[in-house]
């Protein structure tokens, strides 16, 4: 690709970018949120028209009219947001468009068999005939990956495939990627996890503000240099990141727990569990993919109705009739799937940010426009949302920036308990540190936080206490003291012992 430019009304997403991808390499495309990575991929695969520039595949000029054509030309893509059909089964989502057929008739049983085998290759053992929407986002991400790698293509493009995967799933993915690389497939890989870049990639291309910064051999680039190239200034950020201390456990005064779950559970979702959260406490949830972290969070918020046990707020049992009553008790929940459960994509950044706050006030008491602008401006700055235009339509924001908008929505409600389910999904390191700092600051200020993240490091860094889940059971609660680290938690999960 040479000289690629792409402009959206008001935004120059790409200007004069060159990019090349060689067979048998893993090429990482790096850049901050909104740098233009996803746009480059969409331009390449024909989702968007190019304003300017040229694309060459195997020496011939090409210009695809859409993903279908790109696929025919041997380019298989996993786009950033999970783009699958929630109403179809897992097996279908993997094979649709390429179903095994006999005389034009789809062979369902064969399809399901092959899907199950394929997912086994990624160490995922699920019922492939179930509807996709019944699975968590992480599983959906794996399914999307499975779909892409099964299309035996010359080029495989993965746009932030690992944003909600655990270490072990990432490991599986990398194993498969290496295998494909051996076979000569060219792989384009986008991620915000720097360690993953250094583990898997051969070369790195860095974008900044829609412009090409440069192309580098991974071996020759240090972590510090890479970050510098991405954000374009010197690296206080990274330093901060490293020096952040574990939260001081002792400093917490234990009074009455703010929230107490007693045998709270829901059939088919999560087994009854006990959990207490104090004022100013950050509680992390750890577990493997599908272990029930999201379910725990949703039950406490009342997004799903519990069918057993009770929830105490300030020591008093409360009837959770849904998100509304949770919000009435100053509980906020930032969900993991921003697209289906978070943002209202047609609305503007401003509207999305004030939505929850407005919902609490009711429709008759609109937040004065001046106050809206103040709040929104503050968080656009604090989280570095780009473009910094409160009237931009959220659909047009880059993935990471959308996530920040969602986060801002809940931060402005100033809850007593903030439930964050994968809040840093798809966010670049700069913003991630910012968010982590924010969480720490908020908890210092007395806010309790329930923190769920696939990135164990992050959980460890922030939490006072870590609850460990396995197979939808809460099996342990560990105080996050010096003895606790990632290995210890993995051990706990593996042994499955109940604390």
């Amino acid at each position, binding site marked *: 690709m040479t000289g690629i430019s792409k402009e959206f009304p008001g935004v120059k997403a790409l200007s004069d970018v060159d990019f090349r991808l060689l067979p048998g390499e893993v090429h990482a495309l790096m850049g901050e949120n909104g740098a233009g990575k996803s746009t480059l991929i969409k331009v390449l695969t024909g989702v968007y028209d190019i304003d300017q520039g040229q694309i060459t595949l195997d020496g011939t000029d090409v210009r695809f009219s859409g993903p279908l054509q790109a696929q025919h030309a041997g380019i298989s893509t996993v786009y950033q947001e999970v783009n699958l*059909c929630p109403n179809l089964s897992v097996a279908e989502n993997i094979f649709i468009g390429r179903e095994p057929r006999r005389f034009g008739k789809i062979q369902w049983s064969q399809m399901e068999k092959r899907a199950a085998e394929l997912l086994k290759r990624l160490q995922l053992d699920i019922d492939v005939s179930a509807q996709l929407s019944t699975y968590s986002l992480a599983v959906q991400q794996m399914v999307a990956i499975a779909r892409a790698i099964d299309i035996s293509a010359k080029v495989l493009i993965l746009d932030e495939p690992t944003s909600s995967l655990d270490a072990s799933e990432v490991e599986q993915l990398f194993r498969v990627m290496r295998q494909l690389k051996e076979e000569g497939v060219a792989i384009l890989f986008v991620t915000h996890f720097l360690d993953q870049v250094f583990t898997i990639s051969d070369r790195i291309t860095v974008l900044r503000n829609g412009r090409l910064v440069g192309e580098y051999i991974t071996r020759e680039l240090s972590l510090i240099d890479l970050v510098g190239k991405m954000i374009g200034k010197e690296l206080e950020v990274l330093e901060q990141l490293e020096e952040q201390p574990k939260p001081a456990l002792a400093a917490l005064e234990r009074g009455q727990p703010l929230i107490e779950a007693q045998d709270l559970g829901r059939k088919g979702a999560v087994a009854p569990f006990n959990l207490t959260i104090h004022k100013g406490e950050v509680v992390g949830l750890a577990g493997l993919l599908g272990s029930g972290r999201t379910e725990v969070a949703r039950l406490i918020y009342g997004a799903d109705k519990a069918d057993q046990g009770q929830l105490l707020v300030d020591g008093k049992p409360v009837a959770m009739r849904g998100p509304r009553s949770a919000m009435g008790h100053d509980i906020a929940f930032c969900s993991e799937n921003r697209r289906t459960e978070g943002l209202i994509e047609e609305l503007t950044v401003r509207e999305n940010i004030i939505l929850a706050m407005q919902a609490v006030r009711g429709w008759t008491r609109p937040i004065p426009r001046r106050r809206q602008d103040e709040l929104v401006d503050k968080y656009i700055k604090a989280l570095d949302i780009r473009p910094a235009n409160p009237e931009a339509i959220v659909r047009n924001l880059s993935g990471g920036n959308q996530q920040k908008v969602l986060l801002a929505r809940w931060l402005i409600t100033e809850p007593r308990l903030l439930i964050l389910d994968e809040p840093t999904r798809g966010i670049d390191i700069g913003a991630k540190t910012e968010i982590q700092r924010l969480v720490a600051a908020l908890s210092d200020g007395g806010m309790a936080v329930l923190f769920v993240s696939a990135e164990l490091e992050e959980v460890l860094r922030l939490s006072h206490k870590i609850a460990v889940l396995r197979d939808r059971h809460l099996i342990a609660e560990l105080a996050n003291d010096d003895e606790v680290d990632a290995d210890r938690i993995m051990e706990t999960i593996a042994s499955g012992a109940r604390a």
Partner: protein
Amino acid sequence: MSTLSEVRSRISLPNQKYLPVLATLSLLALMYGIGAANYEAFGDAQVVLNVFIDNGFLLVVAVGMTFVILTGGIDLSVGSVVALTTMLSASLLEERGWPAFVVLPLVLLVGSALGFGMGCIIHYFDIQPFIVTLAGMFLARGLCYTIGTSSIPIDDPFWVSMAQSRIRFGEYFVSPSVVVAIIVVLIAAFVLAYTRLGRNTYAIGGNPRSALLMGLPVARTKIAVYTISGFCSALGGVLLSFYMLSGYGLHAVGMELDAIAAVVIGGTLLTGGSGYVLGTLLGVLVLGVIQTLITFDGRLSSWWTKIVIGALLFVFILLQRVITARKR
């Protein structure tokens, strides 16, 4: 991981996705039972067959509509295309004297072409299906009137034989149209479940953007469903002209609503992506049985007829909702 998959397979019982259809079926049976208990001749199996005979054309139209609704679209033109087909057939057969074997494929082609045209406009110019098909509705109805404003009787021998011959088994009978309608239902069920076209239809209904990004032939599929709907409307029109032996610009006024209602009562989501042709068949039967109940009663005034139809519809949908909600 093994416990996890256990949990999941326990949760998703195999028949769960057919639950709405099963619920509809049992309610339908219940309704028929009530009718048979109250009205003497209602229990006769011929009453059921008559429901098929009287609604064969609606069934075919509703099958086409099912495809469209599964993609999340809607086709308001069906009733008018039905009327146009009857009018065109009648005028070609009677006023031009064309032979049946020419007219039949021709009118089917015209219907499909109209559907194809609307599909193209909807897809390529990205216009809401509602208005495009509404314009199609005006167009087809308008074309009827340009052919003629009064009703044209058909006495072409082929049409007459299709209209009046009866396929008998014992003392019971159905019309050839019923056989055609059932074949259409079977083909449609097969297409939806076992062909790429069918699965792509569901995929687009589930999430059109994803379908595009997954590299599915969205353009082809979308245009295809409107063409199918156009074809089914034309075929429905042919069946209706068998049924009535006439062509008339005012035939099938409002049939689009009946068809949509049948599809939705059958459990298909208007937002697309979920539903079955079998459900549509049941939906048509529900409408047919309600109507039969009312004629058998024969005591209702015009307005009470409407109120009772509404009330029965309400009770039916409410029960359907209650049953499916509880089991979920």
